């Protein structure tokens, strides 16, 4: 906005000049440019010099006493100011022996006298004239006794107001005290405008309060009361407060604006129009009018004008005189005082928008940007080129960190195939050196390599697909990164789990055991269920699953083996497919085909009949069975529970939850094995991001632990278990009943907002349009035939483009618009055009 500022100040300068020019006339200018303005005269000389009608301020002194020195300085300082109003200032030197009226009194020396002609108007105690402001204010106040009425009560004010109604306007000012700068400003204004408007002054804060001003406070205020137009004696005059500080310039400006006609009628090129408002640096709003709707338009314009009084000018612009093409789409035009800025044509919906257009500067700017989107782009560029992708940014901040790649073999197109033969199992991470996610995973991979250092028959390697696209294409790598384990036998296994150090390491270890592991004897099977087989996994696996099949159930067995292939690396599966399978299964009270689950946390073995026959079903079933009843939710395991697509009953706890609560929750969870929600808990110590969840759910951090019901997949409502109730199965159940019945109020509702683009892109299309003309030329007819409706849009773009080039502003006439678009009735809804800025 610096441009506007400078033009504003240029405007200011301009009218400051005119103001002084005005003052120049108002004062009679007795002396100009004298070296010493304070005249020193003897009493005789003084009184004989007094002219009728001329005011003078006199100070009588015998000799300069030190106490009067300060006062004298102030008097001298105000000589010039008073001279502007035709008031001369005289220091009268009383001879010692003089005992005339003004000289003799001892206290005369503490007073100053104001004369008009030779009539004494007022005598001022010198302590009332403490500085230039107070001198000028008091002197003018005394001289303008008739022009400026002083009121003390609301009744006085109303009386004056009533007298003025229908005759002249009133300027009502409140100053907290006389002799202040504000007081002086009001007086100076009254000196100029006193004959035009009735000035009323008060220092009574209570009066202001009674007059309906809530906070008069200590600041001075000025109102312009439009009494001349007031016709109803019962109604108070309409008032326009001055929003700016009470300075001479502001008052002048305000009065100028109040004096300007409410609505100007324009029947010429609006570019050439100049009104008081524009001269004073305010915008001018044109309301486009046509003959048919003149009356309504006029009323709209007045309505707008009243609301904009003092902020902008309003003019009624006849459509007839302006090139009609320009205007078909707009109903409002805005002319800013800035020179060289072409008029903006807008289509607004109601008068309020006009007000906001002017009043709300930011909004004003937005609309401007709508028309002139390049500005917007520039503004947004601030963020647009700042990285907002946490992974990309984290990786790029880490780029100088040297990775310890000693444990990882870097393969090339040439070495890839030979390396595959070098170890029983070769893990390959296919990545692209420019791709952030691969680089993030590479860092985990380095940690994995460190963990698995020295594992027999295992080789960790990587291929940069940016260097060796051939091998990556051949291996059918379509996503970065892809982690694949190649076994010597030619089998390969692609990792599809969490891209984290632990998960990957665990996968690499688990997947080295065949899945399912074929067990030959009942003893082996029992060892397996105890977690003793295979020995190399003892530190990794949690739950052993044993599929038991009789010879008669080989179809199910095949499906189980296939399921094993799918789950390889994620779970440990055993397979018992011997003649005595029946004996084994009977022990666990199931009949083949069946699954035996040995959970590591409790020693029991659970038998489940395998009713589903397809591999995919078995996979689903195993995955489901592996879910905990009352799990601690972590970042890593949440997706498994999310897949159930059920609401969560989750307890947030800072550290472990108490035995009692665990017991109750377990009871709740176990009580209904197939229930419709996930019962779980979250340890904020292990999963600190839980704080972020609580922060989103509650206005204040609830005391922990807190039990929350979240329906993640439907409605997204969050309910908090009443903190005053103890966490027991019964309480929770009855609370859940109330939830279902809709008797509880949700603490919050999860945002269902879509993940839209975080920021706009560079609008190259538009930038090209401004400079590559053939691009635009080919717009309209290339879209024209199939989508005729698009034409206005594209031609509007064309016009927008043109508008940006001031020298072409006259060409705006090209704005192609089908005539007949209803623009009638500009009041109060201004047009039917879509509300463009409302989207912002």
């Amino acid at each position, binding site marked *: 906005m610096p441009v506007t500022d400078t033009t504003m100040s240029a405007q200011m300068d301009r009218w400051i000049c005119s103001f002084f020019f005005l003052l120049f006339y108002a004062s009679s200018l007795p002396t100009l440019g004298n070296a010493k303005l304070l005249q020193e005269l003897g009493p005789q000389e003084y009184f004989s010099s007094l002219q009728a009608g001329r005011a003078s301020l006199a100070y009588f002194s015998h000799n300069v006493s030190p106490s009067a020195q300060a006062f004298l300085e102030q008097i001298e300082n105000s000589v010039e100011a008073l001279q502007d109003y035709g008031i001369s200032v005289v220091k009268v030197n009383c001879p010692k022996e003089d005992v005339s009226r003004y000289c003799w009194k001892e206290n005369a020396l503490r007073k100053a006298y104001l004369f008009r002609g030779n009539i004494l108007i007022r005598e001022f105690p010198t302590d009332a004239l403490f500085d230039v402001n107070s001198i000028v204010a008091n002197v003018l106040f005394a001289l303008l006794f008739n022009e400026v009425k002083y009121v003390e009560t609301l009744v006085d004010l109303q009386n004056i107001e009533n007298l003025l109604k229908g005759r002249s306007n009133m300027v009502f000012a409140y100053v907290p005290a006389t002799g202040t700068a504000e007081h002086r400003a009001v007086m100076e204004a009254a000196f100029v405008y006193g004959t035009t408007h009735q000035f009323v002054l008060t220092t009574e804060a209570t009066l202001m309060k009674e007059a309906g001003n809530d906070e008069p406070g200590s600041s001075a205020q000025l109102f312009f009361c439009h009494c001349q137009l007031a016709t109803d004696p019962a109604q108070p005059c309409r008032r326009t407060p001055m929003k700016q500080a009470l300075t001479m310039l502001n008052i002048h400006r305000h009065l100028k604006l109040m004096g300007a006609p409410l609505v100007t009628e324009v029947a010429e090129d609006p570019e050439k129009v100049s009104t008081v408002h524009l001269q004073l640096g305010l915008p001018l709003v044109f309301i486009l009018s046509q003959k048919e709707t003149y009356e309504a338009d006029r009323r709209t314009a007045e309505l707008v004008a009243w609301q904009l009084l003092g902020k902008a000018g309003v003019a009624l612009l006849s459509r007839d005189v302006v090139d009609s093409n320009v205007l078909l789409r707009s109903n409002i035009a805005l002319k800013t005082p800035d020179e060289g800025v072409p008029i903006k044509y807008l289509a607004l919906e109601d008068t309020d928008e006009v007000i906001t257009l002017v009043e709300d500067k930011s909004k004003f700017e937005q609309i401007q940007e709508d028309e002139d989107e390049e500005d917007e782009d520039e503004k947004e560029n601030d963020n647009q080129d700042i990285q907002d992708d946490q992974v990309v940014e984290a990786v790029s901040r880490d780029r100088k960190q040297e990775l310890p790649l000693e444990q990882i073999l870097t393969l090339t197109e040439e070495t890839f195939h030979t390396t595959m033969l070098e170890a029983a199992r070769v893990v390959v991470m296919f990545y692209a050196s420019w791709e952030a996610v691969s680089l993030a995973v590479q860092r985990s991979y380095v940690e994995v390599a460190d963990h698995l250092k020295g594992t027999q028959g295992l080789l960790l390697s990587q291929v940069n697909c940016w260097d060796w696209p051939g091998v990556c294409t051949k291996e059918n790598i379509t996503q970065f990164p892809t982690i694949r384990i190649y076994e010597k036998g030619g089998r390969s296994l692609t990792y599809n789990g969490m891209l984290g150090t632990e998960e990957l390491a665990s996968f690499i270890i688990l997947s080295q055991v065949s899945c399912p592991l074929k067990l030959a004897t009942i003893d082996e099977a029992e060892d397996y269920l105890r977690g003793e087989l295979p020995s190399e996994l003892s530190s990794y696996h949690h739950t052993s699953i044993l599929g038991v099949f009789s010879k008669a159930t080989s179809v199910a067995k095949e499906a189980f083996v296939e399921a094993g292939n799918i789950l390889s690396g994620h779970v440990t599966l055993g397979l018992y497919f011997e003649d005595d399978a029946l004996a084994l299964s009977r022990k666990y009270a199931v009949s083949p085909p069946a699954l035996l689950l040995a959970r590591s946390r409790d020693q029991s073995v659970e038998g489940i009949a395998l009713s589903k026959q397809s591999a995919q079903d078995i996979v689903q079933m195993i995955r489901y069975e592996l879910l905990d009843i009352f799990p601690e939710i972590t970042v890593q395991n949440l997706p498994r529970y999310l897949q159930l697509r059920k609401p969560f009953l989750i307890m947030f706890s800072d550290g472990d939850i108490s035995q009692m609560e665990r017991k109750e929750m377990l009871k709740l969870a176990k009580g209904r094995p197939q229930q419709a929600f996930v019962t779980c808990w979250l340890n904020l110590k292990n999963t600190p991001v839980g704080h972020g969840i609580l922060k989103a759910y509650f206005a204040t951090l609830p005391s922990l632990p807190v039990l929350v019901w979240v329906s993640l997949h439907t409605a997204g409502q969050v309910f908090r278990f009443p903190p005053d109730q103890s966490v027991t199965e019964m309480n929770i159940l009855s609370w859940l009943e109330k939830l279902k019945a809709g008797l509880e109020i949700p603490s919050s509702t999860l945002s269902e907002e879509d993940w*839209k683009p975080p920021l706009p892109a560079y609008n190259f299309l538009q930038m090209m349009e401004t400079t590559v003309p053939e691009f635009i030329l*080919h717009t309209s007819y290339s879209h024209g035939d199939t989508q005729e409706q698009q034409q206005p849009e594209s031609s509007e773009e064309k016009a927008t483009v043109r508008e940006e080039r001031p020298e072409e502003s006259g060409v705006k006439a090209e704005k192609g618009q089908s005539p007949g678009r209803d623009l009638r009735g500009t009041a109060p809804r201004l047009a039917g055009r879509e509300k463009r800025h409302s989207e912002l």
Partner: protein
Amino acid sequence: MAQAVWGTLLRLALCAGAVCTTSSTAFLYHDYCVIGAGPSGLQIAYFLQQAGRDYIVFERSHAPGSFFALYPRHRKLISINKQYTGKSNSEFNLRHDWNSLLSHDHRLLFRHYSHDFFPDADTMVRYLEDFASLLKLQVQYNTAIVHVTLDRDQQAWNGHHFILTDQSRQNYKCSSLLVATGTWVPNVVNFPGSEYVEGYETVSINPEDFAGQTVLILGRGNSAFETAENILGVTNFIHMVSRSRVRLSWATHYVGDLRAINNGLLDTYQLKSLDGLLEGDLEDLAIVKDKKGKLHITLRFYLENRNTSAGINSITLPQDELDNFATRAPYDRVIRCLGWKFDFSIYNRSLRLMPGKGNKKKYPQIKPSYESRGTRGLFVLGTASHSVDFRKSAGGFIHGFRYTTRAVHRLLENRHHGVPWPSTVYPVIQLTNSIIKRVNEASGLYQMFSVLADIILLRENATTFEYLEEYPVGVLAELETLTGRKAPNGLFVIIMEYGRNFSGADKDVFYYNRAVGEAQHAWQSNFLHPVIYYYKRLPTEREMRLRPPDWSLPRPDAIHHIVEDFLTDWTAPNAHILPLRRFLENCVGTDLRNFFAESCFLFAFTRQKLPPFCQQGYVRMQGLVGIKRLQRHAVDAGLLEDYTAADFTGDRLLGSPEGSQDQLLRDRAMPVSPLQHLVTAKDEL
């Protein structure tokens, strides 16, 4: 007449049996017939062979690449053979290998054949021989096709068969004809005295034969300059005359224009070392030989009503009227180096294989799909197909047409064998990556800039997309029928372009500030850079037709330029990838950022919807956990909140607006972009 009878007889013989094609012994049938075993003929043969198609290549010579056995006369190819690029990426390296054909065989890379940056033409011949033999391509040598005609048959692929006749009257019948004969008929001009002109084809290449001679060369192409370069040191002086001014390839970015390697004459001309360059219409020229055997240049105008045999003295020479006429000095030799044109003579009129218009008249008229405008099923490949991108891209040269040939093969596979254009389906989170990968390494896009483009077809809801490589953009409107892929949900076209108004015959391509460095000014990039066009629907044929001249595509709904790069390495996270991501995000209307698993976890609990990266990764148990150090970086960048460090007492929890998750969420509330506004506004209208 005789021919017509012959044709009728043929047809009778043909359809006498139940199955015309097999019953006739007069015809040898193949699905695909390729004429010419030059680079493009062998290239299409390779693809047909790989696809297991029934094809044959006819070559009139005893070996492939017969053109290269003769030309260029001075044996130096002007196609670069770069040994080193500092990169191992084989696809990328093809960008700087202008001689190799495409194959799976690594032995068949030209750099294994020659270490010369500008290799010898004999090496090319050897290479082509190896290419044909190592890949066991079906080439029938010593078979000159002398006539091609059509045989209507409703059952045939294209409503007709092609009947080819060779020099020994053997007939061949083909369903599809692939013309890869190049341009080999020398361009000649006829003017009085043109009999004194020697042709480039036969002129001596021994510089000694030119010692002390004054030479005039007609033409201003690479062959003209190559000829001049060879004799520059031994002649008195060389003058070169042509209709238009010389076009320098480094100014036009067109490899067919004068290459710097041959431009020694420009040096000697501009340094006033006697050699010179002239412009003039060769049609107006006349040459008169004097008694001493010197050749004088005059104008056809002066000879009009005169008998040339009347002798030199009776003929007016320009210098008689204008005594400082530029070419008043007599020449010892005049050499014609005017290039070649396509051999139209063997095609029966019914094939309607017409010469192009204007400066493309040396090429047959074809569609941007390389199919003849006159005959369905006849495709023109290689140099002869250069009318599609003449003086624009590299389609007339090996490094360009090896890709357009592949494109033709893909079109044929779809049309005749129901094999749709190869494509890969990716989840939408790979959108940015798939583009970055291609623009950084793809050679076809790079060589055939503005002609071949990668196409991304968005699938419903924009959760996945299909990636098609190197499709000829000229036939974008017919994409669905030509590729067998569907494009109902909008598409991206990825193409490489030079800046508009940057390249040109009289442009200063070295002006200060010629390169753009900032991403936001990328659209003003001058050097070759990737451009991505976004269309909400496939452009229609009409829109394609009405696109601005010199634009390869009609006006898109949105466009993105990746800023030109000095190293042609478009992998910078902030300058290249970030703006691209923003563009793609705004086109597909979703957030394409990557998130660590922890962020996805938070979103899963606090939002009803998840960003695609979380949805397609984390929720499917493939979240990006990331190591601690990375998370710390993200926290430092303000893009991730550190919940461990903060002491979350009540107040703090509430009053930490600087939280990065907040920022992430706040970003969500950013106003609709102007781009999107543009797009949606159109929707509404």
